[in-house]
């Protein structure tokens, strides 16, 4: 049903998914993740940015049994299998929310260029680094 329909096989663009919203209160986080998974089939240069309330998406220990909704946070941990390995998290956004990197999911990938060594996908960056990363993109998808 979801066949990759790569109309321009030669083109590689830098895609950034910008996540600025908390999970569960609205569906944007979940449906954004669905785009990332489908997009992974297109062999583009993909990164994810988590800033503002978006950092709450990757907080560990989520347990949704009580609200009757699906806990989709484990899917972030599987992103490495889809070759999505660059997750940039804004330091200032964490701090404002009383969070540190220890509160986040452990998300890693196996680096095929380095004997499949397991490496962290999450990079905590300062706001001005985030600004620079955004400036390098060809396509920015925000939901």
């Amino acid at each position, binding site marked *: 049903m979801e066949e990759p329909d790569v109309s321009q096989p030669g083109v590689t663009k830098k895609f950034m998914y910008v996540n600025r*919203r*908390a*999970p*569960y*209160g*609205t569906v944007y986080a979940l449906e954004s993740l669905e785009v990332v998974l489908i997009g992974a089939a297109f062999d583009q240069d993909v990164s994810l940015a988590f800033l*503002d*309330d978006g950092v*709450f998406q990757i*907080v*560990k*220990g*989520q*347990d*949704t*049994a*009580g*609200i009757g*909704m699906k*806990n989709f*946070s484990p899917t972030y941990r599987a992103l490495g299998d889809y070759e999505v390995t660059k997750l940039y998290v804004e330091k200032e956004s964490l701090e*404002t*929310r*009383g969070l540190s990197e220890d*509160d986040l999911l452990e998300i890693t990938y196996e680096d095929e260029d380095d004997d499949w060594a397991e490496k962290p996908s999450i990079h905590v960056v300062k706001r001005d680094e985030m600004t620079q990363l955004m400036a390098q993109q060809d396509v920015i998808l925000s939901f």
Partner: protein
Amino acid sequence: MLHTINKSPFETSTFASCLGHAAAGDAVLLIEDGVYAAIADTEPGKQIKAKNGTVSFYVLGPDVAARGLTNGSLAEGIQVVDYAGFVDLVAEHEVAQAWL
């Protein structure tokens, strides 16, 4: 009066506006993304601590757990309730005002 807040205090001004209109003796219940206001040692968490006593603060436990927050990480004095407790709070207060 029972006030409910369902928005993140980091994203919208709803939390601030509600606190600005909560009278002494009122209760405030944080639900959905509103529960993020309860995180201790944040700006909204400190405001809750400061206003606690004048106003009673509650947070919906199932929404806290869904978001990976632990009850221990919440600002002091906030009471955690489940949906049945939510129902009780509405029943106990003459009017419920939703801050959307």
